[in-house]
């Protein structure tokens, strides 16, 4: 995808050994300093949550890691089967929590105007129901909720606000999907999990790349140029990138920024949370 005479638009390969050591250190240190006994994460059967489970087991030992398998009626059967493979391979704890009744209850009791944008709203309800279960588990079992969103998704805002985007600590949020694959291979995650099409699994046949309209393999190098190297969209296009792709990701990156902010508070007083009350989370723990 490069024009003659221009430098290739690439994402340089991750140093997997180094990144694995850094993230293992990060998970162990954050869990222990925050005073949690262990961690909990949603295991979807996909590669992102599988990678987080592998890193967490490496950091804390498998007995301090719990995976929640939270299928809905329409979830692919392979999702639970694949999640169970991860549980078995690592020897971590797990619970199978079917969210169908809870989501159906929401649909019947709480959903107004059920005909408006129904599939998207139900998808959001599923993601948020999983968040409810994770944070409830956190309180009951003193386990810290680990996030499983990668940098590509976060950049594009491909997540449900207060749903899968919610966590206490996210170890893989600065890894592009391409990096997630590389690190997963490095850690020996079964190839079948790495090779299957990424999917939010909110409805049958849904895939990330089908819904977004571009492949991660093409998006990630462009995101890297725009985000990390701060190149202009025009410069990236001039170097041979697909203009439609560059336009799409550069717009999304900014348009979806609201999903990465804590709720905005109107400033009236001298010190305001989110504006000028500046403390690290770790200073207060």
């Amino acid at each position: 995808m490069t024009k003659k005479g221009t430098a290739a638009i690439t994402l340089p390969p991750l140093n997997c050994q180094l990144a694995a050591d850094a993230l293992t250190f990060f998970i162990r240190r954050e869990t222990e300093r925050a005073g949690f006994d262990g961690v909990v994460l949603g295991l979807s059967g996909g590669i992102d949550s599988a990678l987080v489970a592998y890193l967490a087991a490496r950091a804390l030992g498998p007995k301090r890691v719990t995976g929640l398998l939270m299928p809905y009626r329409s979830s692919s059967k392979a999702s639970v089967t694949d999640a169970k493979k991860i549980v078995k391979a690592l020897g971590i704890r797990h619970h199978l929590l079917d969210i169908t009744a809870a989501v159906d209850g929401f649909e019947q009791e709480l959903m107004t105007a059920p005909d408006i944008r129904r599939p998207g709203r139900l998808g959001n309800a599923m993601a948020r129901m999983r968040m409810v279960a994770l944070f409830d588990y956190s309180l009951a079992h003193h386990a810290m909720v680990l996030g499983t969103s990668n940098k590509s998704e976060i950049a594009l805002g491909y997540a449900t606000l207060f749903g899968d985007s919610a966590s206490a600590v996210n170890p893989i949020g600065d890894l592009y999907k391409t990096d997630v694959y590389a690190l997963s291979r490095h850690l020996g995650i079964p190839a079948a999990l790495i090779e299957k099409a990424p999917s939010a699994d909110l409805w049958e046949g849904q895939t990330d790349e089908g819904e977004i309209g571009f492949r991660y393999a093409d998006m990630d190098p462009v995101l890297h140029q725009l985000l990390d190297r701060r190149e202009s969209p025009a410069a990236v296009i001039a170097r041979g990138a697909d203009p439609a792709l560059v336009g799409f990701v550069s717009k999304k990156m900014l348009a979806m920024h609201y999903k990465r902010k804590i709720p905005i508070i109107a400033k009236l007083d001298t010190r305001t949370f989110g504006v000028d009350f500046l403390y690290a989370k770790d200073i207060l723990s």
Partner: protein
Amino acid sequence: MRTAIAQTDCFLGDITRNLTTHFRLAKEAVKGGATLVVFPELSLSGYLLEDRVKDIAITAREATALFDNAGLPGAVIGVGFPEKTRGALYNSYALIRCGVKKAELLGVQRKVNLPTYGMFDESRHFRAGSSLCAHELPGGATTAILICEDMWHPALPVALAQLPDGMPHLLIVPAASPSRGYRGKRPANLEGWEHNAEYLARVYGAATLNPQRVGVEDSLIFAGGSVATDHDGIMKRADLFKEEILFVDIDIDALSRTRAKVPVVSAHDREILRSLFD
């Protein structure tokens, strides 16, 4: 001269608790024969202090008194701390000589270049230091302190080399550099530190000790990887992601011989500099 780099982790904002770690590691270093033990930048407090700076900052005198009765008689300890004076807050580093009972302050360096870009916001919380000087260590070797970013500003080593006694033998470069750039052989920030420390040592015929922090503060991962260099290049390198004592033997005579043999930096530089800047 046997020195030691103490690559430490810490509890953010908790000086009392971190002092315990300093004692433990300094004792281990002294037991191994070190007479100088250097800790990273803001080692007593942690790095990401933000609005907490003004609540926990201490005076240089208070920092020194922390080392009274430390059980490290004769040892010189370099520690980083948020310093308060009557009217200002500084990102400072103290050289403290422990006694049988009382500790004595050999010198304080206040960080001159406060990084305020990207993830850094230091000039919001600290005032910039405005002086740079050499300190004499017991035994006669001289040292100067370049706190983190200060090593990256070429004017500072140039200025140090113009001191009446020339470049100090030993440059202590305490740092708390958040790791970033995981697409090369080592974290990219550490590669930069190594190149820079090696360059300084080779050009100026000085030894450098670069104690790095290890630990996590919110999103920031401090990877360690402290380094020591001399006129021949990299002497020693600490591991990543763990606390460590790195012993470094520095041959002051060899440094002096190198300077005599290859006098890259000379008194003549002062005249050149003056004519260039005038």
